[in-house]
C-alpha cells in the first residue's frame, strides 16, 4: 500500500558522483534514484515509511561545468601523528598545509527534474500511523515549502529548491528522443546488513526524457 507524489526540484548546480570517480568527482548525467530518495527524505521522513522512486523526468538539457577546489584529504595515519606529538596538550586542529589537496569536480549546471515517487509503510510505524496521515504531512510540507533540512543535489553546497508538481503532462528536454542509453548507474545502497553496505546498479535508459524505475532490473 503506497501513495504517490510528484515533486518538482531545480537548482543551479548538481553533483551526483559516479562511484568509479570519487577523487576527482564527476557527476552522472542525471539524478540517481538514491539522490532523489535523499531529497524526499530531507522534506519528510519517518521510520514508518520508505520512499520508492518510480520515475525521474529530466526537464532541462544535460550540461556540465568544472570547478576545482581546495579540499581536505580524507585520512591521516594516526600512528604517524602519534610519533610526532606524544600526549602533549596543545590546541587541536586539522592540518591545513599537509592535508589540503586540489580536486576538480565535474558538475551539472542548471538542472530541473520531476521526481515521481511513492512511499511504503514499514513495520517500524506507530499504531496510529497510516498512509493517509503520511500523505497529508507530505502534501502539506510540499505546499508550504517546509523541510527538515534544505534538500540538495548530491552535495550540500548545491541546494535543491522544491515544490509540488502540478503539471498534468510533464514535458522534458528530451521529448523528441525515443531512447538515450546512459549506461549503468547507481540505483541505491542496500543497507540491510549495516556491517556490509552493498551498492546496487541498474541500466539507465532515458525514454523520452524520463528514467523509468518501476520494476527495473537491479544488479548487485
Amino acid at each position, binding site marked *: 500500500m503506497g501513495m504517490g507524489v510528484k515533486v518538482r526540484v531545480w537548482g543551479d548546480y548538481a553533483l551526483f558522483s559516479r562511484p568509479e570517480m570519487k577523487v576527482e568527482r564527476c557527476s552522472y548525467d542525471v539524478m540517481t534514484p538514491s539522490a532523489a530518495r535523499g531529497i524526499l527524505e530531507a522534506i519528510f521522513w519517518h521510520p514508518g515509511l520508505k520512499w520508492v522512486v518510480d520515475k525521474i523526468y529530466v526537464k532541462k538539457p544535460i550540461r556540465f561545468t568544472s570547478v576545482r577546489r581546495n579540499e581536505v584529504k580524507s585520512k591521516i595515519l594516526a600512528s604517524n601523528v602519534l610519533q610526532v606529538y606524544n600526549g602533549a596538550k596543545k590546541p587541536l586542529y*586539522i592540518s591545513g598545509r599537509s592535508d589540503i589537496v586540489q580536486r576538480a569536480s565535474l558538475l551539472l549546471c542548471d538542472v530541473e527534474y520531476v521526481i515521481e515517487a511513492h512511499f511504503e509503510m514499514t513495520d517500524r510505524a506507530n499504531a496510529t500511523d497510516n498512509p493517509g496521515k503520511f500523505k497529508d504531512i507530505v502534501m502539506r510540507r510540499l505546499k508550504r515549502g517546509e523541510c527538515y533540512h534544505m534538500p540538495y543535489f548530491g552535495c*550540500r553546497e548545491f541546494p535543491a529548491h522544491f515544490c509540488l508538481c502540478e503539471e498534468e503532462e510533464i514535458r522534458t528536454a528530451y521529448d523528441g528522443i525515443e531512447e538515450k542509453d546512459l549506461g549503468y548507474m547507481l540505483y541505491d545502497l542496500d543497507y540491510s546488513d549495516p556491517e556490509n553496505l552493498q551498492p546496487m546498479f541498474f541500466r539507465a535508459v532515458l525514454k523520452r526524457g524520463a528514467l523509468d524505475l518501476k520494476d527495473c532490473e537491479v544488479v548487485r
Partner: protein
Amino acid sequence: MKEAIKNRYEFVILFDVENGNPNGDPDAGNMPRIDPESGLGLVTDVCLKRKIRNYVETVKEGEKGFQIYIREDVPLNRSDRGACETLGIAETDDKKLTEELKKLKKSDPDVDLKLRNYMCEEFYDVRTFGAVMTTFVKAALNCGQVRGPVQLGFARSIDPIVSQEVTITRVAITTEKDAENKSTEMGRKNIVPYGLYRAEGYVSANLARKVTGFSGEDLELLWEAILNMFEIDHSAARGKMAVRELIVFRHSKELGDCPAYKLFDAVEVRRKDGVEYPRNYQDYSVCVHEENIPDSVEVKRMA
C-alpha cells in the same frame, strides 16, 4: 549544551570586491573564478566557510566551546584524540590505545555518540557546518559523520565580471644566477575591477536540535562572522572586499513557513538604470519585496 535554535532561517549575503581577486581558480592560473557560459563570477562555498572559520578563530581565540577544527598545522587526529581523553583514556602508544578502545567499545556501546557530542560541544565549525570524522577508525570506533545545520551555496556575481591581468615588477631577484643578467622580475596579478556577489544560505533548526546543538548564541556569532568575514582577511591579492548587506529571513517555525526560493526571489539586486560599467556598490539597488514574503517570516537587514 545550550539550547538549540528553534526557527528555520534563510539568508542572503551581498559582498563586493574592488580591484582584487575574491577567489582564485586553480584551474585557470589563479584567475578569478568565472562561469564560462554566462561570464558571471563565482566564489565557492568552501571559500566563504574558510573566512567564517577564520573570523571565529580570531575573535574567540581558543575560548572553550569555540575552537575551530579545520585550521593549519596540526593533523586531524589530534582533535579526535582530545575526544578520547575525556573518556578517561590516556594515550601512550598506538597499540595500547587501540586495545583500550576495543574494550571501551564493548563495555560502552554509546561511546561513538559521546565522542560526537564532545566534538560538537568543543568545536564551533563542527557544530555549524558539520564534519566527517571517520578518520578515527581505530577498533571500528569513529566519531561519525555530523551534518551541520548551516548550508551555504556558491556565491555568484550579479553581472558578468571582467578579469584583468596586471603585470607587476619587483627589484629583488630570487637567485644569484638570475641577478647577474637581469635587474627586475616580472609577476602578474589578476583582479576584478568591481563585482557584487550574492550568496545564499540555509539554517536547519531540526539538525541543530537533533544533532549538533547549534544555539542562539552560535547563530548570533555566525551573523557577526559573516558581516565581518573580510574585515580581518585583507591581503595583497584580495583588494578591497566587504560584506555590504546580510539579509536574514527568520521563519516562525522549526520547519519553516514558506519555500526558500520565494524568499530569495523577493530579494532583487539590480544595476541602476544608466549604469553601464558598475564600479561601486552605489551602482546597484537592493530591494526586498516585502509583499511577496509571508507575514510570519521576519526579515532582518544587517549591514
